[in-house]
């Protein structure tokens, strides 16, 4: 499974980056390809490219606040959750996404 995603939190200092790291580590452990863009208080970093978005099976938005550029994901399967929901049990969270996509015949 190829994941692209965005993390963003209210202050844009801590959870945005911690959640990113957690997602990347969990994705690696589960054997998924993953790219995460952070939208923190210093703006967007590691911005996703159109090619990466196109190649992705799913878009994971781990966000507590409004993000910019959501229209880039039009037509893609999107999973949206609060950062704390993704942080709590990240491996399981990603595996459930995979399961759902498989059931829907999208993987």
């Amino acid at each position, binding site marked *: 499974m190829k994941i692209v995603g965005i993390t963003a*939190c*209210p*202050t844009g*200092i*801590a*959870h*945005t*980056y*911690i959640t*990113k*790291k*957690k997602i990347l*580590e969990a994705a690696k452990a589960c054997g998924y390809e993953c790219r995460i863009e952070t939208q*923190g*208080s*210093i703006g967007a970093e590691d911005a996703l490219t159109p090619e990466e978005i196109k190649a992705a099976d799913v878009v994971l938005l781990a966000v*507590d606040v409004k993000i910019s550029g959501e229209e880039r994901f039009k037509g893609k399967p999107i999973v949206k959750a*609060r*950062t*704390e929901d993704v*942080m*709590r049990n990240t491996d399981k969270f990603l595996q459930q996404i995979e399961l759902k996509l498989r059931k829907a015949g999208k993987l």
Partner: protein
Amino acid sequence: MLEIQDVLFEENVCLNLTAKTKDEVICELTELLYLNDVISDKEEFKKEIYHREEEGITGIGDGIAIPHGRTPVVKKSVIAIGRTQSDIDWKSFDDKPVRVIIMFAIRDVDISQHIMLLSRVAEMLLDKEVIDVLHSAETIDEIIQVLKQGGGDR
């Protein structure tokens, strides 16, 4: 390039807090920041800390919590570190109590370099080695050393 010592000062670390509750922890660390001239208004700073607490969970697991406040009453962006002598009830991702509290005081209008450094420190708090040192360190130097090393892997 900024280094960890630009945001982490010995005077803002207390490895034997007397606090026994979350409120007492926030009070004790706020007092420390006030005494060390990091913040100009204790009540205003605490208000911001509690505001962020209401927005979501700051216990990031492994006994560590990261309350943070971004407000104009912060004079310089720093990290305060406190360690308690007993378990503190604090909402966290792994539902475990907290012993190490990393409090982020963030200046309202700050240069991005500082913010990036604080963000990098936040990320490091997921590293097993960093977590272990925070729980066991007897001196602040041990903490600075491990955070310094952690800074190299990004």
